[in-house]
């Protein structure tokens, strides 16, 4: 069965739960996307920019030191999305969506951002392709990520701090939706993850699937077979879905998404939506959410700002329920250890988000059978996190 279905559902998850004003726009977007999907000239342009401008394909790096660190005969490969322009996988999607916006005749782009990675990637694509860019960012996040705010401004974007609600990513999405409801004809909302109303989870997945498609080709070339285990971190879930999707029918490949357990799942300070969330409707989609018994959305927490989201992409909810992927979580503390380990062993400072995937591998490495091939998507680099990690280490 192909997902999403015509109504935008992945099994029982997904849909388009948005105000009526936006519904005709979502139909327009879906139509425009399905049209370019069949248009080779669109993909040629996208591939050209990803190659020449953003630096694709990214290497699939055999992390020998890390592999031997575990003292077992396992092979660990890192998919180096951290080497992309702007420092993370986000650019795969923003170049795609901004190109799509141009073909739709839109001249204004809005985006939400949590830590600023998607905001920077959107501002970058807009600078490159000549569109006006407005980025909504929770006021707390603009404080925590001042450098990224400055970066977006350098790139010519307007950054609007959002003071409502928890003043973080979920409120930035609310505000972007409000802007979109108001400026429907000129504007396209470029969503940064596999979340939101249909067709966004599908569109973002398709653009990010380049990650998994490359992994498959590269690993077959290097090892002559598919990996046994594929790991990626999950906030909204775009790097994980981009990694998993091309493997969905290769049932011998175990897919594991790693969520942020924050301070611990027994507390209220985590972002492990799939682990402990319950189905509900937020940001246009039916999916697992962190919510209280009344249905109010809870604040999420993670040391990795990109994982700090109380919802998750509906296709991950579907993969969880169907069992195609497993979802686990690691704490802030465990992610920090992994952050340091990868820096020391491989000379690669990972984004704190990506460090979650490494951290889970540390937990299970000793139980893996020999000759296991593991691929971990390193969704971004850790430059942005260096100062907060320092504070954390020195503070403890």
């Amino acid at each position, binding site marked *: 069965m192909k997902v999403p279905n015509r109504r935008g559902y992945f099994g029982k998850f997904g849909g388009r739960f948005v*105000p009526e004003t936006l519904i005709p726009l979502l139909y327009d977007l879906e139509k425009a996307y399905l049209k370019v999907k069949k248009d080779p000239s669109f993909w040629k342009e996208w591939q050209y920019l990803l190659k020449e401008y953003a630096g694709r394909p990214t290497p699939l790096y055999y992390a020998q030191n890390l592999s031997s660190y575990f003292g077992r005969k396992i092979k660990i490969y890192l998919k180096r999305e951290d080497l992309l322009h702007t420092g993370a996988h986000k650019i795969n999607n923003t170049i795609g969506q901004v190109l799509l916006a141009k073909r739709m005749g839109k001249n204004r782009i809005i985006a939400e951002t949590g830590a600023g990675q998607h905001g920077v990637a959107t501002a970058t694509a807009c600078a490159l392709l000549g569109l006006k860019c407005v980025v909504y960012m929770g006021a707390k996040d603009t404080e925590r990520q001042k450098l990224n705010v400055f970066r977006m401004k350098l790139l010519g974007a307007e950054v609007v701090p959002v003071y409502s609600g928890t003043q973080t990513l979920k409120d930035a999405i609310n505000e972007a939706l409000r802007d979109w409801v108001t400026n429907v004809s000129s504007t396209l909302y470029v969503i940064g993850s596999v979340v939101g109303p249909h067709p966004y989870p599908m569109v973002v997945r398709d653009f990010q699937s380049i990650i998994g498609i490359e992994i498959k080709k590269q690993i077959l070339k290097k090892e002559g077979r598919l990996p046994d285990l594929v790991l990626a971190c999950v906030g909204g879930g775009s790097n994980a879905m981009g990694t998993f999707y091309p493997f969905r029918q290769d049932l011998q490949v175990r897919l594991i998404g790693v969520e942020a357990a924050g301070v611990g799942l027994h507390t209220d300070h985590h972002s492990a939506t799939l682990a402990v969330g319950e189905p509900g*409707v937020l940001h246009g989609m039916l999916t697992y959410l962190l919510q209280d018994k*009344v249905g109010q959305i809870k604040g999420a927490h993670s040391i990795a700002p990109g994982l700090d989201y109380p919802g998750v992409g509906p296709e991950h909810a579907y993969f969880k329920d169907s069992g195609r992927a497993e979802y686990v979580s690691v704490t802030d503390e465990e992610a920090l250890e992994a952050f340091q380990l990868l820096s020391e062993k491989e000379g690669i400072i990972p984004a704190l988000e990506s460090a979650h995937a490494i951290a889970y591998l540390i937990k299970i490495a000793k139980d893996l059978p020999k000759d296991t091939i593991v691929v971990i998507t390193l969704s971004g680099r850790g430059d942005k996190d260096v100062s907060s990690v320092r504070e954390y280490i020195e503070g403890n």
Partner: protein
Amino acid sequence: MKKNASLIKKAINTIKSKGEVAVIPYICCWDPDLETTEAILWELAEVEPACIELGFPFSDPVADGPTIQKAIVRALEHQPTFEAYFDFISRLNQKGFPHPIVCMTYYNIIYRFGLGNTVEHALKSGLAGFIIPDLPIEEAQPWIKANQNSGLATIFLATPTSSKERIQKIVKHTKGFLYYVSITGITGARDSLPEDLAYRLKTTKNLCGSNLPLAVGFGISKREQIKLLSPYTDAFIIGSAIVKIIEEKGKNSPKEIKTFLKNLKNL
């Protein structure tokens, strides 16, 4: 007395036959506390509204502008439950509250409470129906099904971006009244409304036919607006302008709200 969809229409007809303007005021329950909410409701009753929209607060109200967002924050401080909301409606009705009340809330609250459970509680409490701004007709089948024989008002919204064909579909599923959103945007009082609004209301009214009243909302706060649009709509939804008074006067807002609405109705 059952206060369902048909009562809203009856109320609108009665008000119109007197040559008055039918208004539908919105306030958010628990803003700033339940006692004040009740006091406001009794003052509102004296203005003879067509019905009252009583919001149940949701943490992520994407269709609402800053004024109502702030009201929701004030209301959420009381950590209200949906059960308590229905209890409150029951108590009001036991005291003989004379006008239909509809609940305006977001879908997650209803989804979480359970669709059937929500309908059951609504009927038991004497609530007249629901407005759910993030539930477009595409996603509304389960909700419509849960309401098949409920008699509750299932109020859907039509907007300037809805095509004629869509409005026809929306009208089919709508009971109580059709909520026409005046602008492409979020809730909030505005100085000016789009110039073609009167025309769009006129065509929408035609699509509603004679059985379904049409109400216009978003941005309505002035007598001139009402005067201009009165020939083309059956009722006016007034939200942010009232909530603004609550924001400023808090516990002292009830009387002031009544005066404000009386002035609005007095053309």
